[in-house]
């Protein structure tokens, strides 16, 4: 880049070097598949949610007596209000879908492994913030599902030892979910996306420090990397086109398919709907909550179920690169886990009064946690088996080199410690 204006800026702000370093010269593995599009897509959905959200907030009224009607106002009277609202509601589902695929890709290809642990953990933090934002936003329409969803989830904090009841009242600002709860949820629902944007920047800084993983699981030589721009901007934009087609089908043709009909009834604190369900993206975790017969245990299990992913860098002990692609047993585990998630999702959706479903939920919950706990043992056994079966020459060499490096580093550390003594 050149020109007097760019020059003027570059003397005061590292614009050209930043663009060069992070975009036009940023080395990206040439073999990234379309599964690597989803981080970019998540960024786009975040922008869509913030944009539609800000305009919705211009017409929405965060007051228990007005909230429900102000949604009707947005739907019927505000110019393109229906579009803004459907984009925002569908966008929430799209956000979770994109993030789930993004996480599944990370798990499948083992992208969470060294040196990308912090990248994975900042992502885990982003997931928690996204869940909190989605949960608080769901109260705002002030329908029956909104109200009872917020009631059930704030009630979870009752299990806090000693001060549980006070915490629940403090969170709600009332003895039950009410006007004060609604106004604070609105305030925080507006704040959280900006915290998420901050955390996304941290996530990206971590990414640009360790660079993208790739399907082979091997860090490529410099000549096998290509600049992010124009190659991956083009690939990401192509993926965005596909995504927007699916997104538009939902927004324009089936916008209510993901909204529970019961939420079109105004919140009534005196009557619980006969069947309350969370949004689809919370169903597996909700099923885990319900599957544990003890309340404290249920809440702990649900919290743990979301956090289990963070332990993966410790649990996976195999040194074979490339995740599931080169590890048949890990691949099997991955697909079994996906099936288990789907079963849990189904269990979370059906009413708990069916005894058989409760049993299925408990088995699936056990399998959920078991599939994490077996990873350390299975991954090591699988590694030994794969080595015995014979690996491609380069891979074996790579693993041995990594092993030698690790030992050298340990020796070095030991020597330094010795020097100090």
């Amino acid at each position, binding site marked *: 880049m050149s020109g007097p204006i760019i020059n003027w800026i570059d003397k005061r702000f590292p614009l050209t070097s930043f663009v060069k370093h992070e975009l036009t010269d940023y080395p990206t593995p040439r073999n990234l598949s379309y599964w690597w599009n989803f981080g970019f897509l998540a960024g786009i959905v975040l922008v869509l949610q913030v944009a539609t959200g800000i305009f919705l907030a211009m017409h929405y009224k965060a007051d228990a007596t007005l909230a429900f009607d102000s949604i009707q106002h947005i739907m019927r009277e505000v110019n393109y209000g229906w579009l803004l609202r459907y984009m925002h509601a569908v966008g929430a589902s799209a956000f979770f879908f994109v993030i789930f695929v993004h996480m599944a890709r990370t798990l499948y290809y083992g992208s969470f492994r060294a040196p990308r642990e912090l990248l994975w953990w900042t992502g885990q933090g982003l997931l928690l913030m996204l869940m909190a934002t989605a949960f608080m936003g769901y109260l705002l329409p002030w329908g029956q599902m909104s109200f*009872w969803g917020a*009631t*059930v989830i*704030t*009630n*979870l904090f009752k299990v806090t030892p000693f001060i549980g009841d006070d915490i629940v*009242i*403090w*969170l709600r*600002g*009332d*003895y*039950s979910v*009410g006007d*004060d709860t609604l106004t*604070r949820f609105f305030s925080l629902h507006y704040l959280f996306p900006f915290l998420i944007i901050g955390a996304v920047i941290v996530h990206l800084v971590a990414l640009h420090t360790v660079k993208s993983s790739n399907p082979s699981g091997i860090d490529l030589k410099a000549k096998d990397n290509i600049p992010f721009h124009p190659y991956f901007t083009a690939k990401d934009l192509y993926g965005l086109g596909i995504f927007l087609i699916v997104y538009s089908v939902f927004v324009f043709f089936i916008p209510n398919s993901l909204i529970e009909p019961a939420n079109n009834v105004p919140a009534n*604190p*005196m*009557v*619980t*709907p*006969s*069947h*309350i369900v969370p949004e689809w993206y919370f169903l597996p975790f909700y099923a885990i909550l*319900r599957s*544990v*017969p*003890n*309340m*404290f245990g*249920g809440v702990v299990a649900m919290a743990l179920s979301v956090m289990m992913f963070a332990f993966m860098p410790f649990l996976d002990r195999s040194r074979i690169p490339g995740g599931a692609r080169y590890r048949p047993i890990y691949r099997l585990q991955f697909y079994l886990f996906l099936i288990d998630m789907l079963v849990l999702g189904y269990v979370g959706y059906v*009413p*708990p*009064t069916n005894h058989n479903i*409760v049993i299925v939920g408990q088995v699936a919950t056990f399998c959920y946690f078991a599939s994490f706990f077996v990873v350390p043992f299975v991954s090591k056994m699988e590694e030994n088996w794969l080595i015995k079966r014979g690996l491609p020459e380069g891979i074996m060499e790579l693993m041995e080199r990594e092993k030698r490096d690790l030992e050298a580093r340990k020796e070095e550390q030991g020597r330094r410690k010795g020097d100090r003594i």
Partner: protein
Amino acid sequence: MENDVKEGGDRRNFLIKLTSVVGGAGVAAACVPFVSSMNPTSDVLAKAETEVDLSGIPPGGVHTVAWEGKPVFVLHRTPEEIAAAQASNGVIDPEPDAKRVKKPEWLIVIGVCTHMGCVPTKEGPGWTCHCHGSQYDDSGRVVRGPAPKNLEVPPYHFESDTKIIIGKA
């Protein structure tokens, strides 16, 4: 000379620690109003008493009234229901029926499931919570989990034979 520097260093370290502690305490103290502002407001606290006229509730009938924004079940129990309630002590959270009522024919309990806060529905004898499947008997005692505790009995007193005040014992 070296001693001077060292003592100076000690004093500086001490001052740094002291300033950090005082500054930290100041920040913590400044958080109190913010945290406290999220607690129930005065007008929310003022909703704390509800009067209920019992004369319109037939035997076997149940009325739901709002107290502190929460539903309270007022159940006019029949002699059979009283007998059934007195026959057992409950299962998960045992408590004699006599301790849960002031007059055996009137059961007054907060209609909020002790599990996740849903409102149970009156079904046959007792209540069923449709959120997670908990069941309560006609004394408001939990007979099937996941609810850990019996339905709470609010503070109340009989103003006359046909009138109670919920919120004050």
